């Protein structure tokens, strides 16, 4: 068992609202890596039939397919707090509309320069029917500043309870983390050079198909934990030899050159003090015990 400083963390309310779907290209098509037009649906809104745990591939015309309910800030000032402070495992409560009082949970975070920033939340099928675009929610934000005693790396974007559900172990200062797969640095694409670890994602490239095959990415699912080798998501996002970042896949695949399934960081060590333990079931849906 790991020990944390969870008793010292501030727990505070941040507000969000259910976003409307947005198109990557407001007029016309996105162009895929091999020059084909594509509609590119998937960012924002409510997805009734796409949830954490579903495959990243296989959704027609989809790009960056976000599962469940995509939340955005209530205004320009508040959106930074929503994105930076919300953590996986935080409680989401609907505070307006027909679904007032319903509860969901944060499952992921997405967004970097040029794309809208969203916090992604899971609700049951039954509850989804009562939600509407524009409904307000409140998140009990808890997790920023979380530390694991004896681990010199950093932890981001997770609530204490979610972190504990991962069954982490610490051996000689090395954190052992379950992941479905390891990803080499050359597969990491758009999002490199992006901001700090608590805001925004970095894509695992999901094109061309030869790369997907070479790395065996076909079975990846939204919510999977992955270990990115030589990747440092800390005060920014870049290549650093020997570093390791464990992250969670926030959303689905892309056919645009250099783009793919977005990963946000949960544990980072510049010195490589993280040991990935392969577990094909290492997915947010399992750790949160989500039901459809």
């Amino acid at each position: 068992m790991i020990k944390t400083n969870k008793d010292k963390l501030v727990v505070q309310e941040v507000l969000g609202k259910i976003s409307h779907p947005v198109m990557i290209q407001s007029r016309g098509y996105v162009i895929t890596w091999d020059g084909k037009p594509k509609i590119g649906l998937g960012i924002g809104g409510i997805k009734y039939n796409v949830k954490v745990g579903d495959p990243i591939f296989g959704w027609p015309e989809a790009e960056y397919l976000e599962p469940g309910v995509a939340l955005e800030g209530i205004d320009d000032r508040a959106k930074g707090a929503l994105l930076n402070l919300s953590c996986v495992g935080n409680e989401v409560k609907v505070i307006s509309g027909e679904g007032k009082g319903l509860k969901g949970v944060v499952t992921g975070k997405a967004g970097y320069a040029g794309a809208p920033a969203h916090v992604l939340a899971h609700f049951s099928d039954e509850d989804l029917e009562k939600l509407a675009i524009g409904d307000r929610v409140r998140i009990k934000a808890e997790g920023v500043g979380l530390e694991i005693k004896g681990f010199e790396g950093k932890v981001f974007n997770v609530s204490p309870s979610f972190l504990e559900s991962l069954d982490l172990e610490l051996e000689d200062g090395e954190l052992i983390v379950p992941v479905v797969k390891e990803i080499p640095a050359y597969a990491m694409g758009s999002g490199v050079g992006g901001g700090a670890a608590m805001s925004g994602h970095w894509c695992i490239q999901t094109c061309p198909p030869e790369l997907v095959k070479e790395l065996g990415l076909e079975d990846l699912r939204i919510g999977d934990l992955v270990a990115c080798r030589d990747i440092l998501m800390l005060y920014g996002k870049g290549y650093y030899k020997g570093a390791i970042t464990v992250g969670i896949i926030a959303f689905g695949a892309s056919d645009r050159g250099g783009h793919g399934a977005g990963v946000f960081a949960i544990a980072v060590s510049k010195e490589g003090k993280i040991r990935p333990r392969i577990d094909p079931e290492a997915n947010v849906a399992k750790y949160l015990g989500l039901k459809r």
Partner: protein
Amino acid sequence: MRVMLKTNKDRLVKMAVMGEVVHPSSRGYTVDFEGKPRMGLGMSGIKYNVTVGDLCYGWAEEEHMEPGLSISNRDPNENAALSVLACIGNEVKVVTGEARGAKGYIIGKHGNFMVWLREEDQEKVNIGDKIQVKAWGVGLKIEGFDDVKVNKLSPDLLERMGITVENGRLVVPVVNEFPAYIMGSGYGMWPVTIDYDIQTTCPEVYDELGLKKLRFGDIVALRDQLNWWGRGYYKGAITIGVVIHGWSSHAGHGPGVTTFLSTKSDKIVTKTDPDANIAYYLGIRKKFKK
């Protein structure tokens, strides 16, 4: 057998687009890859002592240093046209202010375009002066090389880059070559309007790859990188580009490359040449090493 390049340059529209010299901006400290605050100067404005052919590395507090003059257009629609149409190596002319009539070249495309003028002409330029570009290069193709996409490159500069055809392949002189994993910010974006960075985040790796020796204007090769309708990894692909801005201490950033030629095929081979720099090709500087 060596053959000169043939292109469709006679069919390319040559048209005027306009920008103006933009003022630098600053919002205080930014945080580098290991959490240290940095001033980060270098983008926009006029650099009197930094120009194409100079070393990228080592300017105090530098962050994405843009050599020479930086121009853009304040109108978003007009700026979109400037961004797409102007190419590296295009001729420019100052059309307002004390330096009116002075001529130079486009030497890079970041967010801004970077412009070279003679030192005596640059002394006369003020921020806000308008600079007109003879945009020429969109649609450029090399005959017999349909699978090599050409981007952001004036036909004149293409002809001066020392590229030869040998055994049905383009032989391109380059200063250095870089592996896919080191490519950073700008990844996934559209090669026509923005560069992407060779990361100068990890000291061990930037020493190993010789990044401190890079100069503004150097021609470089990027391995396993495809810059066609987007930019990303493609095993065996190669992209040729030019170094257009300086170092960065931000994670995932570094000297920027505007990409010129890109192919999935084996139609491009490289040869090392320390003088493969656009300052030399445009007649701005003499050879570096003799």
